[in-house]
């Protein structure tokens, strides 16, 4: 007990990461460890993320919980950190091939595939859709896009009008959507790679008088779940930062305490709709960490 955990997240803007940090804090407290948070001062800044990894190496924490801003760039640094004897667990985003204690995250491909299908089924298998992508090069962004594309292939009567990056951001989501609305008068549905850009897009649609166009996204931060509740969003594939934070911490701490842990824990994600949304409305601080055991072996 009394271990020091260094937990990395990508920015201080997206509430998803606040969910991660809350999960880490709660589980660490429960297991008697202390947490130090590391977030780049500029959102998603790759070189800064790398420097922070290097600097954290100096402080010799007992455990590092790591999510890459960019896996290609950060892999060598993280490998050296592990070689120098610091145990590292990879969570949230896959960070390439290195001797991590374990990976704890979700199946982004499947989330993308599931949520796209939800939309397409809602549209009756035909219609025109646009995609708001995430940040290119990030594992979550690329995998989700792959899932969308796979679903598209199964629906020959769904036409993809445009696929543009909105970088998981709200303002960009709004602006890209505003322009897409001008460009295409016949959009029937919108798929966004993350809640923030979906919420921006929904605002744009609403103020253009097209609030009835269904929008789906991935994550399930409380704000977006509220939007599902009041009908602004159709559905969300759950990418649950809180759970990821909890489970990663539990697995990581167990591993350094000498327990045998699974190398890969994939937390399943539900599709959040009006019918089932209440569970995700609870603020992070009031949630209770699930036990890792629930997901092991899945």
């Amino acid at each position: 007990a009394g271990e020091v955990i260094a937990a990395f997240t990508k920015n201080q803007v997206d509430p998803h990461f606040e969910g991660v940090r809350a999960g880490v804090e709660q589980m660490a407290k429960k297991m008697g460890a202390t947490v130090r948070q590391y977030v780049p001062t500029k959102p998603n800044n790759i070189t800064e993320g790398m420097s922070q990894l290097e600097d954290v190496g100096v402080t010799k924490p007992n455990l590092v919980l790591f999510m890459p801003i960019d896996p290609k760039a950060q892999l060598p640094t993280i490998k050296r950190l592990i070689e120098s004897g610091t145990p590292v667990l990879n969570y949230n985003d896959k960070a390439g091939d290195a001797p991590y204690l374990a990976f704890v995250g979700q199946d982004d491909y499947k989330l993308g595939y599931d949520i796209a299908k939800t939309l397409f089924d809602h549209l009756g298998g035909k219609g025109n859709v646009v995609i708001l992508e995430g940040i290119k090069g990030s594992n979550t962004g690329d995998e989700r896009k792959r899932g969308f594309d796979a679903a598209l292939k199964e629906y020959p009567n769904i036409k993809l009008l445009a696929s543009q990056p909105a970088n998981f951001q709200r303002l960009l989501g709004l602006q890209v959507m505003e322009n897409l609305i001008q460009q295409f008068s016949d959009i029937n549905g919108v798929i966004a790679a993350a809640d923030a850009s979906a919420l921006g897009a929904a605002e744009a649609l609403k103020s253009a008088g097209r609030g009835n166009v269904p929008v789906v996204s991935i994550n399930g931060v409380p704000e977006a779940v509220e939007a599902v509740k009041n009908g602004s969003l159709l559905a969300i594939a759950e990418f649950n930062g809180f759970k990821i934070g909890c489970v990663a911490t539990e697995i990581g701490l167990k591993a350094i305490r000498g327990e045998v842990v699974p190398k890969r824990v994939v937390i399943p994600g539900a599709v959040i709709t009006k019918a089932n949304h209440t569970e995700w409305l609870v603020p992070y601080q009031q949630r209770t960490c699930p036990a890792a055991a629930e997901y092991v072996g899945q």
Partner: protein
Amino acid sequence: MTDQTVHATTVAPAALLRRIPGVTFILVGMIVLFAVGNPRFLSAVNLTNIGLQASLLLMLALPMTLIILTAGLDLSVGALLGLCGVVIAALLVAGWSLPAAVAAAMLVGLVAGAVNGFLVGYLGLPAFVVTLGTMGLCEGLSLVITNGDPIGGFTPVLEAFYRSTLFAVPTPVLVAATLYGLLSLLLYRTRFGNYVFAIGGNKDALHLAGINANLVHMGVYLLCSLTVALSALLLLGRTNSAHPSVAVGMEFEAIAAVVLGGTSFEKGQGWLFGTVLGVLAISVLRNGLNVLSVEPSLQVVCVGLLLIAALLIDRNRKQASRDIA
């Protein structure tokens, strides 16, 4: 009347002391504070970290000093650094040899520097505006070339080079130190160096002295862009992949370092070594905050406070020295 009525202006050692920018005191203060806060701050490993982190910024800030000495500014260096990285990576992946790819990046740097230099040096357009434009051009080209995707999977030689050491000193630090040596020779011992100060102080005077001042002015931008193009090798070694906008924003940090180091935006007043101090201050601050695990939002505030505090000190010292005179 005798000769004594003409005051001979003398350069006292105090004048040299006055040159030392206020950021030096903060730098020393920070080092003490961080070392007390965490003894590992002064460990060899951490000093290596600081060196590595400072070296890339220094590679941008040193030529930026020359540009600012000409009363100019180059906002395009971050974007250009990214672009040159993308060019090298893309060509390597396409099967080019390393020297050929680097040559291509140098060519890109040459073109960027020539555009900046021509518009600023020959046409007299404001550097801030011109380089803001070329910043967009460079960032845009990187995005177009990569279509937004990072490029990886090229020769490991670059990373090996970046990670190598000589007498326990990381190669990037040696590269940056060499650049410092070369530039300070250039700036303080050659005609070109004199002309850099003259352009910032009084470009007409240089022109009237029969020198092709516009050409020299353009040369400063070329020099800067070429250095940036070469620095892309360090960046690639560090990130082991090329990202279109990885270095966008670094230009502001480089400029901040230069000005913290006592170089002013006007009149060709400045000091190359001051830039080294400025870069160190920024790097030490960022490293120390991490080593002391300072709360993330507080870290952001601290960067701002460093800038303001260092300049406050300079301001007060300037006032004090004016009172003495």
